[in-house]
């Protein structure tokens, strides 16, 4: 079932067609990988979907609802969570606080509720803290709960960013190069978390250059180049479809 759909999405910067008539679909409970050389338009596509860029034309649908043109916080609230190519955590806040900031619709989220400080707000925040601790356990970061995010390693920060995205209980999870810069052990952790998201029915879309991972875990692979989708299918079909050399694609069969 298609949770996220783009229809004829276009974005140009001056003379450069960064995203050129892109129509893709991301299904619930599936991992869709978007691959292609640097500059193919993959991150631009994510930025268009999540509202950080406005499309020149075309639509983005979340379920039945058009979300193109909405501001990023609205799209995030609607159920689209993302991670960034260069990891974005809240550096001077603790790891636990970083996760807690992912939750939506908390009592105490508005200034009036903060001032009222009801028992419900205090109780709910305690519950969310326990929930956030579980998220940290899943990522094996439980001992870092009070650590300032800036003091954790790059790989750990990526897991924290992912944890924040999970806390939002999204319908769609967009991950931009989640494996970049990670050691083998961290990559395995990351894969485990992504597959857990898939099992929960979240529609996962990854931009990734690590071909091994892409081929191992993806249900659908979409190839982009020069702003266009040039191929789409199962990992095997994409590998077989290759006109470009194996070295470029890195397919190992």
């Amino acid at each position: 079932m298609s949770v996220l759909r783009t229809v004829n999405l276009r974005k140009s910067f001056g003379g450069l067609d960064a995203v050129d008539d892109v129509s893709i679909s991301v299904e619930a409970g599936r991992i869709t990988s978007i691959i292609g050389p640097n500059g193919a338009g993959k991150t631009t596509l994510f930025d268009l979907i999540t509202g950080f860029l406005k499309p020149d034309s075309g639509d983005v649908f979340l379920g039945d609802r058009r979300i193109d043109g909405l501001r990023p916080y609205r799209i995030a609230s609607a159920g689209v969570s993302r991670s960034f190519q260069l990891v974005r955590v809240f550096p001077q806040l603790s790891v636990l606080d970083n996760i807690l900031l992912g939750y939506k619709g908390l009592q105490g989220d508005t200034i009036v509720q903060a001032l009222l400080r009801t028992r419900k707000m205090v109780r709910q925040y305690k519950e969310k803290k326990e929930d956030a601790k579980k998220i940290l356990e899943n990522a094996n970061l439980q001992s870092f709960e009070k650590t300032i995010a800036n003091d954790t390693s790059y790989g750990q920060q990526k897991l924290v960013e992912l944890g924040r995205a999970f806390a939002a209980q999204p319908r769609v999870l967009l991950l931009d190069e989640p494996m970049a810069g990670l050691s083998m052990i961290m990559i395995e952790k990351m894969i485990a978390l992504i597959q857990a998201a898939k099992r929960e029915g979240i529609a996962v879309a990854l931009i990734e250059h690590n071909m091994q991972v892409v081929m191992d875990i993806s249900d659908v692979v979409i190839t982009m180049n020069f702003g266009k989708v040039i191929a789409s299918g199962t990992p095997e079909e994409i590998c077989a479809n290759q006109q470009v050399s194996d070295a470029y694609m890195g397919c190992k069969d």
Partner: protein
Amino acid sequence: MNYVYHVMILCGIYIILVTSLNLIMGYGGMFNVGQVAFYGIGAYAGALLSVHAHLPFLLELVLSALITTSFVIVIAMPAIRLKGDYLAFSTYALGVVAYTVFNNWLSVTRGPMGIPGVRRPSIFSISFATLPMYLLLVAVIVAITLFVFYRITNSPYGKSIEAIREDEIAAAAAGKNTSLIKVTVFCVGAFFTGIAGNLYVHYIGIADPTGFTTTESFLLMAMVILGGSASIKGSIAGAVTLVIIPELLRFVGIPSFYAQQLRSIIYGVVLVVIIIVRPQGIFGKLRF
């Protein structure tokens, strides 16, 4: 003893000012070098309402705070699009404009002559004219201010404010309405700064431009940095320390003419020392 009351009243007013600035700068990460403009607007609004409208004090207090907030909403909406240095310069310019208006809009502010005759207030026929009573009034308002700021900053909303300071894009991607929160932070800061301006003007008895120079903004920033950003304890510590230190000069026998110039030197020295020795301030946990 009167002197002690005087110093404590000043401490109270500055605690409110510094806590407000700390919300905007420390928690919110927005460089506001124009805080003095909000202070002055609150003071002049209070003076004008008191002298011309003779409103009951509490109504006048809230009204002048709301007037200050209205000015600030208009300023904040474009201002929140600016970051770092640009915001600092713009808010500095705001402070300069405010002082220029206070000093030159003769028909309203009476320029350098100021607006005298601002009387100590009475609430429900209790007079707060004497120093101990006025200190009581200030203390109660400080308590309310700290209560409000404590609740705002110790809540999910407070964490959202800090998230925006840390990484606005990540905060937006986490579903926080960053523009609204930033404007709200400015407005809450403005509201209480307006209240502080009102308390000041009723204490001194006159609204005059020399109290609202841009140097005053640097003093407020020094108090935030000294005490520690994003910390209510820090705001109190910074305010009290930098109010008291120059007053101690009197006991060292320095004639008051020199004391005035020495103040600026003291603020500068304290600021430099703190940045070298303990950049996060006394109670702060953050570094700029």
